[in-house]
């Protein structure tokens, strides 16, 4: 399950492969497989397997740090996620993939308390210390349960400076001095941001903005990071940068990461565990590498 060597391996690999493989970020490849929207959903439903809880537990290692049990949730009265289970171990990363509208983001929203949970449980913690966080508000999730959410692109406060953006990240801290102190720690970690601390966020480049969005979530020093489409809207070279940052957060800072990624290949390469979600239900689960090698997954979600 240890994937710390993965990026290094990858870098070696890409150094020796042809230019076809070389363009980073989005990858290259053929565009032969042509399947319609409905077909993807239909075929994805067809490859769905019965997945036992034991299998999920096994993927997460001996003990899950965050677990979701029989979750039903959605927006308003509409149920989008039906009876969903998830297990992820401490310091592990999990990537959710699936067709558009399968409910991937809805799960992140549910974990963070942004939508209606009809039934089920979300628990966080080691072994016996697990705490039920299902009913907590999102501010309590952030403050008490150590769960932080990193939004899709364009979510910096454009009219505030980089520094103020980070201070906002510590909004829930008891005093603003604490928030400033925490922000300093983040600046130490990312000198690139520190150089631009007095600049308004709107003048940052795309990559810097993404870095700010990620680092803003670190101010509260969370244990679990929910990451929504880290690569969206980014140019190829920044995509690799973002995944390197996340890799560092997982392996050096020991964060647990749950992510949704449309760029499924990149997501699965990064993550220890991959879940395929179809129509609000779990259709496949495996290690990232297994799913990458799975021909069905390749055909339906990776573009052949």
């Amino acid at each position, binding site marked *: 399950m240890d994937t710390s060597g993965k990026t290094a391996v990858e*870098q070696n690999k*890409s*150094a020796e492969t042809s*230019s076809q493989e*070389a*363009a*980073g*970020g*989005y*990858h*290259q*490849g*053929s*565009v*032969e*497989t*042509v*399947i*319609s*929207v409905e077909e*993807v959903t239909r075929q994805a439903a067809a490859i769905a397997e019965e997945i036992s809880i034991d299998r999920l537990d096994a993927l997460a290692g001996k003990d899950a740090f965050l677990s979701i049990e029989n979750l039903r949730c959605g927006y308003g009265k509409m149920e989008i996620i039906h009876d969903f289970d998830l297990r992820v171990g401490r310091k592990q990363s999990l990537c959710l993939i699936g*067709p*558009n*509208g399968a409910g991937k983001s809805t799960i992140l929203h549910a974990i963070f308390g942004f939508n209606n949970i009809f039934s089920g449980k979300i628990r966080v913690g080691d072994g016996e210390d697990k705490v039920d966080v299902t009913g907590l508000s999102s501010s309590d999730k952030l403050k008490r349960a150590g769960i932080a959410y990193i939004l899709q692109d364009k979510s910096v406060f454009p009219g505030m400076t980089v520094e103020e953006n980070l201070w906002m990240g510590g909004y829930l801290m008891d005093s603003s001095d604490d928030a400033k102190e925490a922000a300093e720690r983040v600046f130490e970690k990312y000198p690139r941001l520190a150089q631009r601390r007095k600049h308004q966020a709107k003048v940052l*480049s*795309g990559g810097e903005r993404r870095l700010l969005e990620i680092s803003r979530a670190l101010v509260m020093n969370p244990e679990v990071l929910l990451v929504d489409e880290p690569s*969206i*809207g*980014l*140019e*190829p*070279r*920044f*995509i*690799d*940068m973002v995944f390197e940052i996340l890799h560092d957060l997982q392996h050096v800072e020991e964060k647990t990461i749950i992510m949704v990624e*449309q*760029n*499924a*290949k990149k997501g699965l390469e990064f993550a220890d565990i991959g879940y395929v979600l179809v129509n609000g239900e779990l259709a496949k689960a495996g290690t990232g590498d297994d799913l990458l090698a799975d021909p069905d997954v390749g*055909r*339906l*979600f*990776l*573009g*052949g």
Partner: protein
Amino acid sequence: MSNLIEVRGVTKTFGGVVANRDISIDVAPGQITGLIGPNGSGKTTLFNSIVGYHPIDEGSIKFKGKEISKLRVQQIARLGMVRTFQQTRIYGKLSGINNMLISVPHRNASFGDMFRPYGHEHRERAEHLLEFVGLYQKRKLPSGDLSFGQQKLLEFAMALMNEPEILLLDEPTAGINPTLINGLIDRLKRANSEFGITLFVIEHNMRVIMNLAHEIYCLAHGELLASGPPEKIQNDQRVIDAYLGAH
């Protein structure tokens, strides 16, 4: 044969910040031309300058040999240049078929044409094109209820309904599943080869643009960095440094 779009020495600044500096590009008729570059490199600005969203500071933009840099969006659209939006835009409360009907070309519409009904030939064509993009069965649904990917396809079909000579696409595959992207690329290629529509495409996704374009322009910091066929572009050291990343 002369070029369909000729951009010559176009400069555009916003409040002192140069978004495009002295850019010259050509879009050859019948081809698929790509435009790539980092965020903030001025791709969308150039796009908007061409389709008429804002006046340009310097330079000239010609479409079919006619200067269009002073014309407005609607006038340019009626000349046969149609664009799609990055954040897909359709008429959400109208059904798919009505979205198609309203997209008939307005090139020669007289004042009285406003009050005519749509003819049978319009409906036939609308249905044919909906079939082409695979939305025929959903044609009567309010288009706002379609999924994001389907809305992209509908927007593309609407653009075809307008019978453009050239179609400008702003990140046509952003935000959709890699496998569905293949379907869209296939449609784009067929629109180009079967309907003879010239395409000019902004795209971040290298898999898409390298498989699609005949000719690619790369912008960086508001200036033209490189141009050429895909193989040349992806091995161009400047492009790799500024955009693709050193891997």
